[in-house]
């Protein structure tokens, strides 16, 4: 039945001149697509169409299109070289990727008598999708019922309260507001209310997830106005999901990583996995660009590259396609203009595959417009174009006309790591002992991270019954002082204790030299200007580092005892200074 359906889909597509596709279905219901299309978008469409067929476990989409240039890097020489140089390390568990999933898992595993290494190709944690996230801890209402996403989102959201207490990061449960401008929408949601309170909704499958979400509130016009006085037009009602939380995604990731590091996890940056070696069907070692690491377990949290990693152990049953999203940040002068992430009913017809942006807020009070969603072939393509900006400004305009384009202080893009089932993949490999897939983690990956980590912990526990909790495990992490949040008396005391807190380096965000030094010497050291920015906020304000950039650069060089010309903006060759003018 399933195969017949797939054959039909492929045949239909091949009728269009743009396509030339062939498909094969494996015994475990993995569909592999080969062939060509004219445009990349068509490649992605084909993948989705096939993945949507009932019974398909996942899709490996090896198609290419005429508008892309495949960039395949051959690591075979490098692998040989590393194998020969005989720098060898060992540990119990290698976690690939220091994004939100990798760091959350590292922290959960740090409680056990395990030697855990997190290996990251970038120079810092959270360098990819995590840092480009809008920080919404979603209530879980949008996830498709019955998916892993649906389950982990609900659980993750719930876990955040305790997590924020243990790890001392800011979590604001602001709720998220869906605004109604017409009677039809109000009535639609009145029906939902009825279904929820009578329990009838549980019987309706498409609503089964929504029925599980706690903290729903139906607001009248006055209540909407009180909550969000600056909305445009005349809203006549709203639907509030009170469990929506706001966090700084980087802060969460760094809190997890720091706590993991304090409990003994090793983080290796600028380290890329180029091969994984099996012995029979068990993990033997991983090969990085520097060394070989012997280990029993590999946890694949490689984000957009999870499929590449899975290929290294011949257990790749999914393809990750990059879905880019751009976000614009509005000047803090608008702090308090919106209090919750706001959505409009008109937005809900957008593709279900990516989390709808619109207007959101950061815990610091900056408004965010976006993100949008664009399928791109190049997994490194984090560029923002005029069309992206036009679209996200339109999203913002839906909520208010007052905030002007000129109030945008910066914009950036991140890449969502989507698979074709558009669900999370968190499972032990069915082929290779010691390999765990954590793939397809896109929105709501941040909200789900604690639950993903919990699930991986359970998987590992099943495989390894002699895991023991360390006697000295400490789940508590204390954040460094944030000067800007203190009263003048407290600020005064802090400066008297350490005069470095008396020197403001970033004047837009009021960040002191003390905080920058703290960041350089934190459990996960910040070694680049961007790493400092993300930890301390220096350079995040409206001048975007114009004033503090040179000063931060000097502090990094001084604290790390390296020349100014060796300090980078974001790792690799991203040097700021070329050479001294007079030697």
């Amino acid at each position, binding site marked *: 039945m399933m195969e017949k359906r797939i054959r039909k889909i492929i045949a239909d597509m091949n009728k269009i001149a743009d396509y030339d596709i062939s498909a094969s279905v494996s015994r475990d219901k993995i569909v592999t697509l080969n062939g060509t299309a004219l445009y990349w978008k068509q490649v992605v469409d084909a993948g989705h169409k096939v993945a949507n067929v009932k019974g398909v476990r996942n899709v490996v989409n090896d198609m290419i299109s005429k508008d892309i240039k495949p960039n395949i890097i051959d690591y075979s020489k490098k692998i040989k070289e590393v194998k020969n140089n005989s720098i060898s390390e060992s540990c119990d568990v290698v976690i690939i990727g220091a994004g939100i999933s990798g760091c959350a898992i590292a922290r959960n595993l740090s409680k056990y008598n395990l030697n855990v290494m997190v290996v990251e190709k970038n120079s810092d944690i959270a360098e990819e999708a995590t840092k480009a996230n809008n920080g919404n801890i979603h209530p879980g209402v949008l996830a498709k019922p019955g998916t892993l996403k649906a389950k982990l989102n609900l659980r993750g959201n719930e876990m955040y309260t305790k997590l924020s207490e243990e790890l001392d990061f800011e979590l604001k449960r602001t709720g998220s507001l869906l605004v109604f401008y017409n009677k039809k929408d109000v009535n639609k949601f009145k029906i939902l209310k009825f279904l929820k309170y009578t329990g009838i909704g549980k019987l309706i499958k498409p609503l089964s997830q929504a029925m599980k979400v706690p903290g729903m509130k139906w607001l009248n016009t006055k209540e909407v106005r009180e909550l969000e006085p600056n909305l445009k037009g005349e809203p006549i009602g709203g639907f509030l999901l009170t469990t929506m939380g706001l966090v700084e995604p980087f802060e969460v990731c760094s809190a997890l990583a720091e706590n993991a590091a304090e409990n003994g996890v090793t983080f290796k940056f600028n380290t890329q996995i180029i091969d994984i070696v099996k012995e029979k069907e068990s993990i033997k070692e991983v090969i990085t660009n520097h060394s070989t690491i012997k280990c029993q377990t590999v946890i694949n949290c490689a984000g957009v590259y999870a499929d590449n990693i899975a290929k290294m152990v011949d257990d790749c049953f999914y393809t990750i396609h990059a879905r880019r999203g751009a976000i614009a940040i509005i000047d803090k002068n608008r702090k308090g203009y919106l209090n919750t992430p706001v959505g409009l009913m008109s937005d809900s017809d957008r593709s279900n595959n990516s989390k709808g942006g619109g207007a959101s807020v950061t815990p610091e009070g900056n408004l965010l417009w976006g993100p949008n969603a664009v399928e791109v072939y190049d997994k490194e393509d984090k*560029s923002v174009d005029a069309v992206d900006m036009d679209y996200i400004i339109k999203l913002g305009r839906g909520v208010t006309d007052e905030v002007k384009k000129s109030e945008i*202080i910066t914009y950036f893009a991140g890449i969502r790591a989507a698979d074709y089932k558009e669900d999370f993949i968190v499972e032990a490999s069915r082929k290779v002992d010691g390999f765990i897939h954590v793939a397809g983690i896109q929105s709501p990956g941040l909200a789900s991270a604690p639950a993903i980590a919990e699930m991986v912990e359970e998987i590992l526990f099943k495989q390894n019954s002699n895991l023991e909790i360390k006697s000295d495990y400490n789940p508590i992490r204390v954040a460094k002082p944030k000067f800007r949040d203190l009263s003048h*008396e407290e600020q*005064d005391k802090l400066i008297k204790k350490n005069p470095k807190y008396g*020197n403001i380096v970033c*004047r837009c965000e009021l960040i002191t030299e003390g905080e920058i030094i703290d960041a350089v010497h934190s459990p996960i050291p910040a070694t680049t200007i961007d790493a400092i920015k993300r930890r301390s906020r220096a350079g995040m304000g409206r001048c975007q580092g114009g004033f503090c950039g040179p000063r931060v650069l000097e502090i990094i060089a001084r604290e790390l005892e390296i020349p100014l010309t060796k300090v*980078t903006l974001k790792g690799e060759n*991203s040097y700021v200074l070329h*050479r*001294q003018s007079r030697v």
Partner: protein
Amino acid sequence: MNKRQVDVVIIGGGPAGLAAAIEVKKQGIDNVLIIERDSSLGGILQQCIHDGFGLHRFGKRLSGCEYADNFIVEVKERKIEIADKTIVIEITKDKVIYAMNEIDGITEIKCGAIILAMGCRERTRSQAFIWGTRPSGVLTAGTVQRYINIEGYLPGEKAVILGSGDIGLIMARRMTLEGIEVKGVYELMESPGGLTRNIAQCLVDYNIPLHLSTTVIRTHGNKKLEGVTVAKVDKDRQVIKGSEEYIECDLLVLAVGLIPENELSNQLNINIDTRTKGPVVDEYFMTSMEGVFAAGNVVTVFDLVDYVSLTGELAGRGAAKYVKGQLKMDKPITRLEPGENVSFVVPQYVRKHNLEEKLPLYFRVKQKLEKVEVTAVGNDETYYKKKHRVVLPPEMLVEEIISSNIKEGDKKITVNVMEVSKE
């Protein structure tokens, strides 16, 4: 926490603040304090090692550093108190300042009057809406100037400059002298943004091409800048398809404008002029908050430091008078409004009874015109007329009206710049 009381506090020790402080002291107020966040006075002038400063005031061409030194020496001679490496983190509406530094921690200062002299800041890559990636190697012109002139480091080998404002032009020459290959200066507008003399001395003399109606639309390179895409724009500043060109470079210098720095002013909720992006000021450059004055580039971005010093002095005299109770705050006020081909006028309003002998008006034209007449027109009388051969938006106009000419009770004076009809 330390607490103290000061008659006049000046925030910022750049050219505006220095001139203001000297003037306050000259007026007989001894309890004056300059708060400066840097370790030395002079503000941005410290990194302006090129010449051309002070032609109006000193009648000769000085470097920025020399210009500042003239004032710094006088500040020291007059024994004006300086709090250096000190930053103001809060101002309250009852004129209490919270300042901080490494040694004293937080100090609460009750002020008789405050002069805001924080200067301006540079517009950024994002504010210029350049598309593409966000690699290293994209810096504002002021930052590049600091790296080269103060730190002694070069931030690249091959540079493209976006923006033909004075800072962009100065940096084109400076980088060339330091051995950086400047591939060109690109300007979105049809005419250059900087002073004519700078076009000649900084570009023409060094064979650096200036591309008008052309802009940088995209940066390339994920980690380090590898190149930029430039493109021509039409009259509506829209990119002309097909005119795109890739230029290899490792440094993009942004000289895309300056914005008055009014973070502290915003804390006070004072009125900001949307045209100047600075506070609305009166005859003594007092803001809408009584006893809080503004001077220099906080008010509007001036193109000559001489003007900055003049406004500093004016605000200084005003603050001294205010502290002595000699300013009459009552109405009536006369508004000064931009009229034909004028984009803004500073000050925005005056009280005739407080005016000094002459009332200087600072304004810019909207577009380039030749053979024009500047007029300042009251209700039914023209107070001022002056002919100019050519007027350009980048060159600020300063005209002085004889105050006694202004009629008591005039609600509004309009400043116009119009072509002289061919008679």
